[in-house]
Structures are given as C-alpha cells and as structure tokens.
C-alpha cells in the first residue's frame, strides 16, 4: 500500500521525470552537453600542466608523469601479447605453412582453480 506522504511526491515526480527524460533526448540538450563536455575537457587540459609543475616542485609525480609510465608499460604488455600470439601461430603451423596466429587455433593454458 502506498503511504500517504508518497502521493504528493509521485504527483510532482512523474510529470517531472517524463519531462526531463524527454528533454535529455532533445537536440538542444545534446548540443549543450557536447559544448559543456568540450569546454570542461579543454579547461582540464589547460590547467593540468600548471598543477603538474607545482607537484613536480615538491618532488611529487604529476598525472601526466603517471600516464606516461602507464602508457609505456601498456605498450610493453601489448608487444608481449603480440609475441605470444606469433609464437602460438608458429607452434601450431602445419609443416610448410603459416597459421593465421589466431588464438582460437591454439589449445590455451588453464590456470589453477580459483
């Protein structure tokens, strides 16, 4: 059974929800969201170098320092994955041909049980 206090809330909320859900699908809202998103991103990119310089003064790595290292590690891991796939492709090659290297061709290792 709906409590009494809920009735006025629903009376206001339901039309408001319908209106807001319709509004967010409108061209005006989407255009404004896109502009706001880009402005926010541009401001963030403009401010971050200064924050980074200030952090570096104190010997603290900045966000861009962390991102740089993270991306370098990621690149290494991707190279490792590619090497592993090539190795699997070579291992599964029939004599005289080169497999397509797809992981699907290979029996994959099982790890220990969780």
């Amino acid at each position: 059974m709906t409590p009494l206090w809920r009735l006025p809330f629903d009376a206001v909320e339901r039309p408001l929800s319908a209106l807001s859900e319709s509004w967010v699908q409108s061209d005006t809202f989407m255009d404004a969201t896109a502009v706001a998103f880009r402005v926010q991103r541009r401001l963030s990119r403009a401010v971050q170098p200064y924050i980074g310089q200030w952090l570096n003064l104190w010997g603290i790595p900045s966000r861009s320092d962390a991102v740089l290292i993270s991306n370098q590690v990621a690149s290494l891991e991707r190279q490792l994955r590619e090497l592993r796939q090539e190795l699997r492709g070579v291992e599964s090659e029939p004599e005289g041909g080169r497999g397509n290297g797809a992981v699907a061709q290979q029996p994959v290792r099982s790890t220990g049980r969780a």
Partner: protein
Amino acid sequence: MAEAPGLLERQYFRARNGLAYMTGETRPKVALTPRDLVWKEDKARLWRYRSGNRRYSPPVLIVHSLVSKSYVLDLLPNTSMLRFLVGEGFDMFLLDWEPPDPADAENTLETYVDGYIPAAMHAVQRESGADATTLIGYCFGGVLTLLLAAAHPELPVRNMMVMATPCDYRQTGFMSNMFLERRLEPEDVIDDTGLVPARALDEGFQTIKPTDAVVQRVNLFQNLWNDTFVESFLAMGHWARDQVPFPGALFRQTVEVLIRQNALREGAIPLGRGEVHLKDVTCPFLNAYADQDTITPAASSAPLTPLVGCGDATELRLKSGHVGFVAGRHAAKVAQPQIADWIRQRSEQT
C-alpha cells in the same frame, strides 16, 4: 508468506537499516554461486560453475558485456540467473572481463571475436568434453557473440541467445545520438591512456534518467524496513554505478561502424579484412529484450530477429528493464524459466 511487521516493528527495522546504510555497513555479498576459474587470457576469464547435477548438453557459455561487471548475472542467491540455470541442470560457463587498463586500449572487435571468445569456446569444450556450445550474449556481449557466429561458422555453436542486445543504434537514444550526429567525436571522450573512462560511461547512463537517483532514494526510504528490499536495492545500486573503462580503439569502431554506419541493422558488418553477415548466423536463435529497457530500448533490439539466417529464430519480450533477465524478482519468476525452457528444448539429456 511471512506476515508483514507491525508499525512499531517497521520503525525499528527502518532505524536499524537506515543507520547501517549511512555507515556503509550494509553492502550485501554478491556472486556467491560456487565457481572455478578454468581459463584466463589477459583480461579474459572463463569460469565454470560447480554442480553435481549437470543433466543437459551442450554446455552453456554466457559472454558478458564489456560495458559492465558480470556479477549482475549472479547478484543475489534468490534471483541469480547463473544459480538458477545451474539448478536446472545446465553446465554453466561465464566468460567475463577484468576491467581494462591501458594495455587493452588498442583492443578492437576482432580482438574479442577472432581471439578471446573462440579461445574461450575451445576451453569450454576441453573442460566439459562436449563438442558444441550454447552461447548467450548479454548486452554488448550479444553483439560480440553475433559477430562471432557470423564470422566463424567453423565454431560449434549449437544455439544462441542474446539478451538486451542493441541492433538498430538509431533507436538507442542519448548516448548514441551524441556521436551519431557528430556532436562529439570518440577522441573527445577517450583519455590520455587510450581508454574511455568509467566516469564518462557512468555519467552517460545517469543522464538517460535524470531523476532516477532521487526516486531510488525515496523508494529506499519507503521500504527501509524491508530487509529483502534493502539488500536487493543496495546490490543493484552498487552494480549500476560500478562502471568500467572501455577500450578506446573498440570505442572508435563502435562509433563508426555500429552507430554511424548502423552496420548491425544493415546486417553487414565490416570485420577484419572483410565483412560478416548476420544471415550467416544459422543456429537456433532467441532474441530476448525488455519493453522498459532505457539502455537498450526494445526498438533497438527487435530488428535483430529477422536479420539472422536461421529458421528457428524467436523472440522473448519482457515487461522489465535492462536487467530484467538476470536479476530481480521478475527475472526469477518470468524470464529465467522461459530462458531455461528454450535452452532445454534445444539440448540433450546426459
């Protein structure tokens, strides 16, 4: 059915649960159905659910979406889709994905469709001893399984089901329209690590229903005395905000191919060095979608059914939201039994 508590008792439960909620002590434990990790490759994980009652073959592999965490499929014991299907005698596997990091930023559709998912299927066959698999794809996982079946007819897909899977991206609303009409480009959203941040996805989903946060809290206050409601609310609420990053290269591909070209709706999807066609999906097919789904609207999912090439293509249309198949009372009482029946009719008893 237990008798509802009286007024005083309700106030006591309301106060108790309210205090626990405010102190953050009430988050329920999720994903409790016993399982084993049987295969892993990079961020891809294949789980097999333990059962002493496997009665049907082939095994069932659920391919989870890349957009959310998989514990929604096993949220709470009473409404867990995985627990239900295990209980019905199916040999259940789940392929899910650890949250991507910058190493996954260059992953594309091909990485999953030509790499991880076929490898996982081989692992399923090896673990189960079966020579075929029933595939279930949830949300974007359904997109991946469709592309897999179309691109790899050599893989032994016995049956396929997709749940809340988008097909016509012109009908998916706000998040797609932002890119469809070029208000935003993928580079506006992809960060310096090459990923779409989890926060961007969360904000996008929150925008679709702007008043939902307030309404949900009012619902919680109204039902704060009800332990079952509170548990379910907290579990679902946590999952809904527990977003993950998305690989940037895959995002560019999603925007260009799936959204702007609307390739799934066209039935022809550029993949690898060629093109795959949904009409080459010829296994028995079930397209399950929900009337009140605001993330993958019914109008987006419905066109999928006639696009596949099999004679046994059916639909399951539910009166629920995006998670109505996998969690909640409606899932347990309506969706899951129908899904189990469909699979059972297309499986053998062992």
